[in-house]
């Protein structure tokens, strides 16, 4: 009886305290809102937003609803997160491996990069790229062409836009290539199990992925045209580029800063993973006759990836959350568009901030759950 009370009492006390705190807050909120004549409700989401957004991946203007504005912000956030994850991974892996090079110069350069970009606040790096570095770029009329078709200016990076003819045929050919690669891999695996022979699966897969889509250009009627950005004068001293794709400097600065910063952490994860494989593993693999490539593929990488992937996924999460700093340079991500402009216009602080936080929470939890599932699945079994 005594033990039960010992266990139940603290829990009841904690529960009571939590309920009390929440009750207190809710009560105050109610009173404050009544006094100011603000209602609480999510109905405003279907109202017209009446503000435009500078950069959007979907059709949107002031006549669309707040809910649509939310979507625009969300897509922009996901876009910069995706680009950031892509570039920081590539850079991080390269730097991580460079950190293990026996070449003194290479190792020191990689170490310098990591120490340099890791110890400067991300916000400062974003400001630097946006307000200092990118401001030094030329005006549209003075920009030099890169390979004759792209222009890096103070107003953004202008690249050719793809104009497809029969895009769906190209798309089907890519799908066909992927299916045939899967089939061939299965076949190669069965072949190895039954007869021991090995096929150069990688080369064959690469070949298929390149040749099949290319074939569609020759015989499928697919054609690719480039719409090159063209300089146009709109006033006596201002020019702009029409046609082509314009990538806003805000996006460039944000992606650059996020990638350079997060890559330092990913580099350390990669380095820890590869260093974590004891020398004895590589020696044992060598002593049974495996080639260096086979050792990497069959013994080192499977073990290293198990060490590398969880913290790296954590970094991806951090990158996604850090993308909210976009508000500082007016890149229209979820926070700026929804928790910034929309909130200022409607005054619905509680609803909007709660929706925003809930969105980020969902993304974080989803990735956490995925990571937990992955970890359980590949965990090395022990006693």
């Amino acid at each position, binding site marked *: 009886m005594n033990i039960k009370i010992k266990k139940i009492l603290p829990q009841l006390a904690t529960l009571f305290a939590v309920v009390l705190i929440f009750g207190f807050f809710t009560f105050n909120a109610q009173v404050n809102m009544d006094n100011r004549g603000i209602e609480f409700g999510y109905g405003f989401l279907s109202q017209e937003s009446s503000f435009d957004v500078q950069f959007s991946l979907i059709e949107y203007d002031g006549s669309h609803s707040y809910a649509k504005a939310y979507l625009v912000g969300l897509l922009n956030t996901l876009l910069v997160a995706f680009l950031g994850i892509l570039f920081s991974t590539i850079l991080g892996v390269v730097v991580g491996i460079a950190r293990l090079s026996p070449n003194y110069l290479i190792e020191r350069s990689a170490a310098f990069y990591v120490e340099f970009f890791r110890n400067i606040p991300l916000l400062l790096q974003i400001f630097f790229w946006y307000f200092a570095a990118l401001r030094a770029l030329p005006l549209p009329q003075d920009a030099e062409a890169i390979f004759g078709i792209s222009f890096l200016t103070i107003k953004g990076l202008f690249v050719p836009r793809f104009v497809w003819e029969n895009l769906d045929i190209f798309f089907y050919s890519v799908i066909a290539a992927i299916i045939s690669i899967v089939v061939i891999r299965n076949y190669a695996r069965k072949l*190895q*199990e*039954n*007869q*021991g*022979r*090995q096929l150069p699966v990688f080369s064959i897969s690469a070949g298929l992925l390149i040749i099949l889509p290319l074939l569609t250009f020759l015989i499928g009627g697919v054609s690719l045209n480039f719409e090159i950005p063209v300089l146009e004068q709109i006033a006596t001293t201002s020019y702009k580029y029409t046609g082509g794709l314009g990538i806003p400097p805000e996006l460039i600065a944000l992606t650059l800063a996020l990638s350079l910063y997060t890559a330092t952490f990913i580099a350390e994860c990669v380095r820890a993973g590869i260093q974590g494989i*004891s020398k*004895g*593993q590589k*020696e*044992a*693999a*060598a*002593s*049974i*006759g*495996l*080639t260096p490539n*086979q050792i990497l593929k*069959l*013994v080192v990488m*499977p*073990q290293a990836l*198990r060490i590398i992937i969880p913290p790296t996924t954590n970094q991806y999460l951090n990158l996604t959350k850090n993308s909210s700093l976009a508000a500082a340079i007016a890149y229209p991500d979820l926070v700026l568009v929804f928790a910034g402009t929309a909130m200022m216009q409607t005054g619905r602080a509680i609803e909007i901030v709660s929706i925003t936080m809930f969105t980020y929470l969902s993304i974080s939890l989803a990735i956490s759950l995925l990571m937990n599932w992955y970890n359980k699945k590949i965990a*090395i*079994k*022990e*006693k």
Partner: protein
Amino acid sequence: MSDKIIEMKSVNKWFGDFQVLKDVNLDVKQTQKIVVCGPSGSGKSTLIRCINRLEEHQKGTIIVDGNELTEDTKNIEKIRAEVGMVFQQFNLFPHLSILDNCTLAPIWVKKMPKKEAEELAMKQLEQVQIADQAKKFPGQLSGGQQQRSAIARALCMKPKIMLFDEPTSALDPEMIKEVLDAMVKLAKGGMTMIVVTHEMGFAKEVADEVIFMDEGMIVEKQPTKEFFANPKSDRTKLFLSQIL
């Protein structure tokens, strides 16, 4: 002459400034069992690690089964497929089952079909009496079981020579016997073995020759009976008095 499977002539090795092998000469004939003993730091592990090129010697020649060990990598891989090694720390691959540990090299190096490789592996695992653990993972086995699995893994490549680098030094006392039993069985089956160890009981039972190394040199090399009955050098006598 031609049944010498390992020939080491004037082998010298330095780690930086420190000379770890000094003018080592050693010939091993097929089916010979040699035990190498000596104080720590004497170079005995380095000696056998030079045989499968896990360490590089700077001076002298090492010829294994007619092939000289040089920087030529194709040669090294050929030699490694014929020389099996068992490590003090077992070094089983933790992410693969015991069976997969054993079939890895036969499948990828000898290009054996999976079924054939698995049959071969099960046979070797039975030899060391661990066939019932084939589907388990290294982390689920005891030290003695892991080391026996490591022996089976090395045997799956059908080596002509087996090298043992202090195979029982990392084991709890009650598990040493099971590993030594497996090694004795292997020896009686005719395998050429070079074993670095402190287990003198094993040496007395199975070794043809015992070598005592100290400070990088072979101090004494004698047939087993002679070695224990009449050690010639004072250093050997001192060492034996300390461990027997």
